[in-house]
């Protein structure tokens, strides 16, 4: 270090000080940062600082063919890429008037729910680590990897599947897939009790997470909170049920809610959702064999595909909340405008800045993770 850099200038003459939280920080999710102003160890103000993962997706997509964009959309949310693919494809289908065959729709649901489980397991791991329960992280992520194995069989990719294309999906299931799927579901259910002992009903979690980062329903609605975080405030809203897409209206599942709206309920809601996803997947595995037919509507040659003029605003329920794509076509081979509305854009910025206030420094990381935000989705 240059010696002249040691003289600390402009230190505030009080117990108020500022702290850079991230981007290189174990308590931050992904490559994301925010600055906190502290009084002692109480946060008095927090300020999000994003852009470390900015790639300018919306710009890139304007420069690529309709089909080519499928390769980049999953990158917008790394831990939970499937909803991105599906949402984009559905948007394009809406404009192009493509009819998605039934089987493809079921396959998409299968994929979406698997992805949801994977994302939640990931979440448990991360959140547990912030309260010092590292074993859960080791377990959760190892179990998530089993789902990635299934994805690899199904789509040829572990993390980025690029499995959906406008009009349907790219391949049918490999032989024996549903059998392995059921086996995995059995396994996951058998694990739940372990997870309960280890994490959800664990003294450490309950005592550290209860009442932390709490918001009531009114605040949640005002701040634009969606998804599990909203359901943790007692509002049973879920796009899958309230604006059904694909075949969700044919599926039987519940919308778990918790009232308290604090870290604990946010965590428990996700645990309950994991069960619901398993339940959905069971139904899918049961129905799929009977749903015959093509997996894809005839798609035009990707090199020669002009979508008609039109716009679409497609919303689906990702594991983090309400995900929406606004797609605008002026009748060209490329989109004129694509706008991605990711749930984390609310959670990771405004909501986080508000929830952090009054929290103690050691709880900040926990609040960050409990919102389960996804930085690349904020930056795009």
């Amino acid at each position, binding site marked *: 270090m240059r010696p002249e850099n040691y003289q600390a200038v402009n230190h505030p003459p009080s117990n108020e000080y500022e702290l850079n939280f991230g981007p290189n920080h174990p308590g931050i999710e992904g*490559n994301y940062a925010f600055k906190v102003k502290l009084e002692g160890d109480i946060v008095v103000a927090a300020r999000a600082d994003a852009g470390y993962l900015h790639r300018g997706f919306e710009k890139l997509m304007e420069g690529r063919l309709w089909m080519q964009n499928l390769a980049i959309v999953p990158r917008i949310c790394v831990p939970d890429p499937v909803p991105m693919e599906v949402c984009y494809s559905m948007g394009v289908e809406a404009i192009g008037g493509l009819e998605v065959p039934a089987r493809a729709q079921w396959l998409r649901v299968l994929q979406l729910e698997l992805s949801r489980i994977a994302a939640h397991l990931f979440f448990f791991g991360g959140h547990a680590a912030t309260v010092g329960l590292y074993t859960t992280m080791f377990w959760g992520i190892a179990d998530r990897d089993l789902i990635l194995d299934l994805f690899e069989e199904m789509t040829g990719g572990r993390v980025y599947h690029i499995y959906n294309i406008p009009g349907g999906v790219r391949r049918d299931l490999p032989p024996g897939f549903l059998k392995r799927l059921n086996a995995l579901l059995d396994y996951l259910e058998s694990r739940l009790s372990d997870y309960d002992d280890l994490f959800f009903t664990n003294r450490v979690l309950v005592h550290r997470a209860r009442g932390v980062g709490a918001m009531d329903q009114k605040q949640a609605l005002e701040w634009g909170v969606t998804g599990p975080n909203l359901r943790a405030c007692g509002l049973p809203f879920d796009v899958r049920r309230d604006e059904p897409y694909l075949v969700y209206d044919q599926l039987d599942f519940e919308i778990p809610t918790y009232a308290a709206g604090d870290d604990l309920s946010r965590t428990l809601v996700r645990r309950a959702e994991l069960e619901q996803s398993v339940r959905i997947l069971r139904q899918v595995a049961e129905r799929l064999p009977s749903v015959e037919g093509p997996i894809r509507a005839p798609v035009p040659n990707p090199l020669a595909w002009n979508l008609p003029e039109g716009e679409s605003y497609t919303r689906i329920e990702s594991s983090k909340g309400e995900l929406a794509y606004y797609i605008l076509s002026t009748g060209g081979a490329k989109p004129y405008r694509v706008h991605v509305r990711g749930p984390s854009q609310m959670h990771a910025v405004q909501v986080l800045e508000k929830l952090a206030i009054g929290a103690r420094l050691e709880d900040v990381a926990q609040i960050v993770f409990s919102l389960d935000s996804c930085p690349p989705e904020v930056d795009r």
Partner: protein
Amino acid sequence: MKGNKVIPIETHERVPARQRTNPWAKVFDPFMDFCRSRSLFLLHYCTGCGAVELPPTVTSRFDVERLGIQPMVTPRQADILLVTGYVATKTLKRILLSYEQMQAPKYVIGICSCTVNGGMYWQSYATVKKLNEYLPVDVYIAGCMPRPEAVLHGLQQLMEDIKTGRANAWQDYFNRYDHYLGNQQALFGDRWQTPTDIIGEARHYGLLGEQTLGEHTALLERIKQPLEVPTAGVFSPHSETRET
């Protein structure tokens, strides 16, 4: 597909790295390198999407600890900087700050396509295209993103190189600091500076080469000033104050 699935790790002749007068050096240095290769700390910094394959790598299923490698949260204690995928310009600054804080010998691994030639963000105005223009890279791992197995293989490759004394990219940063600094200034503007005194360290390690100093370092010397602790301006007047 049957058959032998073991992917061989290349081993190399030991290259004479440093001129040491100490007669024990011949015995001692290889031993040090060996030990070094057996205990490495991985800087815990998720720079890009490739990072999503790191949790599996460090946790039970692929368990990188078998190689004596562990995540480490602070740059000063870390040996390996893993640049996982695309690097936004904003991130690159943080990467450089972290890298310069790391203690030599330090190693950089670039994974994913993006660190090599821009990857799928080659069109993007926000990401840098070639990592090795801004800091020297020891090992690249191909993939978008590479699977944990590939990451493990890359780490083993690095360990092998450390053991055989080939992983010396960090010296290049000192030797050709002017070159790297030049590229950094081209991207961040002339006022770019970091708290670390690379030239001083280069002297310390005896790595002051012809290309360590140059026009760019001269510029740096001109503009360098004490770094200020950011206070005012970080919190805009509109941002929340505590409710009572």
